[in-house]
């Protein structure tokens, strides 16, 4: 498609989608590992303003703002990893397809106090066959649930890995990402192993 594109200086970019309900720590997660400040545009405002902002009279606003929330990691000279947070509001639903198209996989962050908030993300990724991993973000002073309990509450099978994480902690975020990539690899290798 872009046949003239093979310039040695242009790195390959791969993206991972970071999803979950409002306030679950997506931007924190991205910020913990990104080498650029997470570029948050309107996502912040819109998530907070659900049901508060009167959007009448600002028609067209959704089409004039960028509404992206992402960070970047240079893995090496020729390989960059982008982490894209999903926008939280229905009016940015059109962005989801762009975010997920070609994504390596998705991390769905879970807050055990509002477990239902991640259902929309789960449904979307399962529907699109996106490899995904559930990461229960540990908030301080909250009751700790067994991961199996969380899995049961979410109604996901054992094929979906579930881990605990601290979105503020770089090492924890790294572990989540490595776990997701392992999951993607396992999926891909099993596909390769299938007889044609």
């Amino acid at each position: 498609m872009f046949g003239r594109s093979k310039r040695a200086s242009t790195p390959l970019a791969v993206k991972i989608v970071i999803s979950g309900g409002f306030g679950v720590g997506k931007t924190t997660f991205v910020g913990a590992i990104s080498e650029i400040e997470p570029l948050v545009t309107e996502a912040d405002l819109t998530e907070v303003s659900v049901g508060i902002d009167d959007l009448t009279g600002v028609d067209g606003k959704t089409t004039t703002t960028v509404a992206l929330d992402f960070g970047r990691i240079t893995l090496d000279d020729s390989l960059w990893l982008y982490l894209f947070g999903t926008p939280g509001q229905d009016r940015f639903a059109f962005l989801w397809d762009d975010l997920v198209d070609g994504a390596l996989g998705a991390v769905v962050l879970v807050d055990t106090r509002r477990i239902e908030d991640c259902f929309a993300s789960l449904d979307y990724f399962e529907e699109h066959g996106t490899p995904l991993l559930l990461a229960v973000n540990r908030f301080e002073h909250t009751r700790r649930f067994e991961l199996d309990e969380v899995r049961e509450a979410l109604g996901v099978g054992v094929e979906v890995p579930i881990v605990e994480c601290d979105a503020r902690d770089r090492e924890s975020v790294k572990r989540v990402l490595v776990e997701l990539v392992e999951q993607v690899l396992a999926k891909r290798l099993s596909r390769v192993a299938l007889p044609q």
Partner: protein
Amino acid sequence: MSEPGPRLPDPRMIPPMREAVAVPSAQQPTAGNDAEQDPSDAALADATLVRPFLVTGGRTRPLRDGLRIETMVSALPAALSAPLRFELRRIVELCQSPHSVAEVAVRLEVPLGVVRVLIADLVSSGYVTCTESAEIPIDVIERIRDRVRAL
């Protein structure tokens, strides 16, 4: 009764890219105003007054598909001397070092749909090149895993 100032253009009508030179001095924020209105909010408000697909001549479909948000865009140095209009020139300048489609959208403060049309135009005219949107090979996935682990 306070003296009305000179009639100034509505600042919201000034395109965001030109705000630095175009905002009249009477509109300069004072210390008091700073607290009330963040300049980036003002820029955001300005941006809403520009019809987004104006710069694409009304076209909403890129000339080519395959431009994902993470697709990397590189401009050829020769493109700097090409007679390009404002937005295209900015892309060519920005992409002298590779930038993703998403980063270009953020830096130009235009929606993804618009930036895709503009970048596809530049690809068609040979001023920029883009990475392929192919399936990620297994060895690259392994490399991602190892590199993330080593961060």
